[in-house]
């Protein structure tokens, strides 16, 4: 019952929240207390229960036990509309955009009354009026007046993110929940978001912030609640902590030591593989409106990073290379021989494999089991005379589960029941099973917990050391620089920069310089 600011009760108090999903106790008597004008970080690994707790707070589901006090009064949040009424807004981790609606409609959906500040209920929508009201905020986040009227599906994922942020802010909430809000944002976008968070805080708005990027929270959040396995581990004040101590709280002390190892590895990074033969050469790749005359080479044993702002064409380039998208012109040579790749099937046959971004939509086959997912890209391996050899399938899958340390109760478990990090490992196994020579990782650590991240990085480095060619797309420059030998920078579909010898440069000039160089190339504004 203690409060920080003196006599004012905390704006939010969740007490003893429990929730059970069939056999899993997702939340076990969890507490959370947030004061007015406080930025409160909610931390924990995958499966810790953060999303469930937020779902309850935002009205998407109801707790089995526990009470919620809002501004001192007990409330129940049965439905998201009730959360809105109370003044709780949420920026979801997964894009929550309605594609067939316009940007403007996405923004005001469900909250016209708050926007127009009208007391009376009216069935009518006055779009012009609403557009005027949101104009200022949308322009701040880079959404033009014309774009307000465009279907939301047409905008790139960065702008879609911005739409969600605007949508949450425009409701002038008392509590703003941010679930991984910086994923997919560029540096200046992140800075803008943090600015808004600070100004909201100054106005007395409370922020509950969930993020995997532990370095971001220091300097912004004052307090944190750490969760593990559905329980609250500790409520801490962030003043006397650093990243390592925090990780120890979240995962235990062994994990913290592991992280240390990686940080050293960043600075010592020297790729032991021989950078020599050209495994992939792309010349003059063109696709109207998307890719402009892109040419580059990829070597065996090399990790090539692709940098660029969202919408620059990184994923599009890779998709074109593996044949998932068509191209207007250009050639691709694999090990010196020109090939036409018009379907991912062909790409796999030629030794190319891609781990796509956004695994929920492009990666996992949700109803399939772990083993069925693993063998999918090369069914030949488990097929004899057209029939699937289940034993072989189990053998292969067991091997990958051991190699990548995939946590799953058994191989027959449906992949959708696994955590994000383990799902990603299954997809990586699928690609590895196809025996590729060239692997493309598109945002390989998106939305996965720290320990899985480290493991994925290890896999990538091992692949390069063993002579495979690796391409990595990562929006987080730290990660990209830490992994790559060389970085290509894309901007608006064209190749605008190449930075060689990354490890040496980092040792000589430091991370920030390299980062800045990449950012400059990536964001120089044209006409």
């Amino acid at each position, binding site marked *: 019952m203690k409060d920080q600011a003196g006599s004012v009760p905390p704006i939010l108090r969740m007490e003893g929240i429990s929730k059970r999903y069939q056999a899993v106790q997702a939340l076990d008597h969890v507490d959370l207390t947030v004061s007015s004008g406080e930025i409160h970080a909610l931390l924990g690994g995958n499966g810790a229960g953060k999303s469930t707790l937020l779902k309850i707070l935002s009205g*998407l589901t109801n707790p089995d036990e526990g009470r919620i006090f809002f501004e001192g009064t007990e409330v129940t949040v049965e439905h998201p509309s009730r959360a*809105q009424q109370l003044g709780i807004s949420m920026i979801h981790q997964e894009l*929550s*955009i309605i*594609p*067939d*609606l316009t940007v403007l409609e996405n923004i005001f*959906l469900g909250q016209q009354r708050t926007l127009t500040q009208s007391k009376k209920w009216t069935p009518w929508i006055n*779009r012009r009026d609403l557009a005027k009201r949101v104009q200022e905020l949308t322009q701040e986040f880079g959404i033009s007046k*014309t774009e307000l009227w465009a279907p939301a599906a047409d905008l790139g994922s960065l702008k879609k993110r911005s739409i969600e942020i605007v949508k949450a802010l425009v409701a002038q909430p008392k509590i703003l929940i941010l679930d991984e809000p910086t994923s997919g944002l560029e540096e200046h976008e992140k800075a803008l978001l943090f600015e808004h968070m600070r100004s909201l805080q100054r106005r007395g708005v409370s922020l509950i912030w969930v993020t995997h990027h532990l370095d971001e929270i220091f300097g912004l959040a004052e307090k944190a609640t750490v969760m593990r396995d559905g329980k609250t581990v500790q409520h801490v004040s962030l003043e006397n902590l650093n990243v390592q101590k925090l990780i120890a709280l979240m995962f235990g002390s062994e994990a913290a030591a592991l992280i240390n190892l990686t940080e050293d590895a960043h600075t010592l990074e020297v790729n032991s593989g021989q950078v020599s033969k050209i495994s992939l050469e792309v010349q003059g790749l063109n696709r109207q409106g998307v890719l402009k005359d892109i040419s580059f080479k990829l070597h065996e044993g090399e990790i090539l990073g692709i940098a660029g702002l969202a919408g620059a064409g990184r994923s599009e380039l890779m998709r074109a290379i593996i044949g998932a998208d068509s191209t207007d012109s250009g050639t691709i040579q694999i090990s010196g021989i020109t090939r036409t790749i018009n379907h991912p099937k062909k790409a796999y046959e030629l030794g190319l494999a891609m781990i796509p971004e956004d695994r929920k939509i492009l990666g996992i086959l949700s109803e399939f089991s772990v083993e069925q997912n693993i063998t999918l890209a090369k069914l030949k391996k488990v097929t004899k005379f057209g029939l699937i050899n289940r034993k072989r399938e189990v053998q292969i899958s067991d091997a990958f589960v051991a190699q990548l340390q995939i946590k799953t109760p058994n191989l027959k478990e449906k992949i959708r029941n696994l955590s994000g990090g383990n799902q990603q490992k299954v997809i990586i196994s699928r690609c590895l099973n196809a025996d590729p020579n060239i692997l493309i990782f598109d945002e390989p650590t998106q939305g996965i917990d720290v320990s899985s991240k480290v493991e994925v990085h290890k896999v990538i480095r091992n692949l390069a050391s063993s002579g495979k060619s690796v391409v990595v797309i990562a929006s987080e420059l730290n990660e990209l620089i830490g992994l790559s030998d060389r970085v290509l920078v894309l901007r608006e579909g064209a190749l605008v920069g190449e930075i060689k010898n990354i490890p040496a440069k980092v040792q000589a000039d430091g991370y920030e310089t390299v980062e800045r160089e990449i950012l400059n190339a990536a964001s120089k504004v044209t006409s």
Partner: protein
Amino acid sequence: MSRVNSQISSASIRNKILMDPSFGVISLLLLVVIVMSAFQPSFATSGNVTNILNAMMTVSFLAIGMTVVLISGGIDLSVGSTMALTAGVTGKFITYGMNLGLAFVSALAVGALVGLVNGLLITKLAIPDFIATLAMLGIGQGIMLYWTQGVPILGYMSTPYYYIGGLRKIFGPVSIPMIVLVVVAVIVAILLKKTNLGLNFYAVGSSPVSARNAGVHVTRIKIWAYVISGVLSGVAGIHIAGRTTTIPPLIGNGYEISAIAAAVIGGASLAGGRGRVRGALLGALTLTLTGNIINIVGIASSWQTIVIGFVLIGAVLANRATQMFGKRIHLRTEKMDRKKVSA
């Protein structure tokens, strides 16, 4: 796409027309009309036009209701049997001595009730919409069969009903059903375009999860869509009872397919999130026109179904061509606009 286009005041008229999803169908229709008028004198007469307009009434009402359901991401296979049921309610209640107005209200109420049941089955019991409405189709037909014992309903017509059913016109070629259709079309169109409920239909159909996140009561919205479809089936039932003057119990047979076809030809998507009232009317017109042309040209009735099959496939291909064509134009004009700005 075009629903959104109409909101962009700066989009040129040319673009608006070209990118309208029904552009393909409209152009084909125009072509057909021109050809028919040139080669078949009996086609372009006022008598024939009135025939066409009269014939498209029933399907229009059903298609509008179907469009609303499709927009919200569902499908309603029961509209034909609900129409028959509500027609039966109208006829029977009149023969029981009820006055006309009350009978009409009862019919609409029954339609709404069927819609409500559909909505509840789909949302509360999580029965897939295809199956739930298919089952209701059977149940509705069964009720009608049992109630009438297989015997067509007769003897309910009266002078005012002749006018309401459209068999007698009120002035010139205009009949009451036409007026009702216009009113209904306008009301539903305004509902979809300018009200919150309308926007919610599109939202729920496009992405129910995101809509829920935004605070929309997805269950309620879906139920409303089916209720509206049920009520419009009731309107169709009242109309058809007045037009045919006897009600065989299976009168609704096959109308659900026509309703779906009309809605889709008009641009509604089976996946949800798209559709417009004027598309529904366009689709109904297309189907009716097809039947009309078949009759005039004298194609044997055995070929009718074949022609309808081709029309269906042709219409969706035309719509698809428009989509792809439109995207290319969209890209090209965007580039042109950008050049203009930077110059």
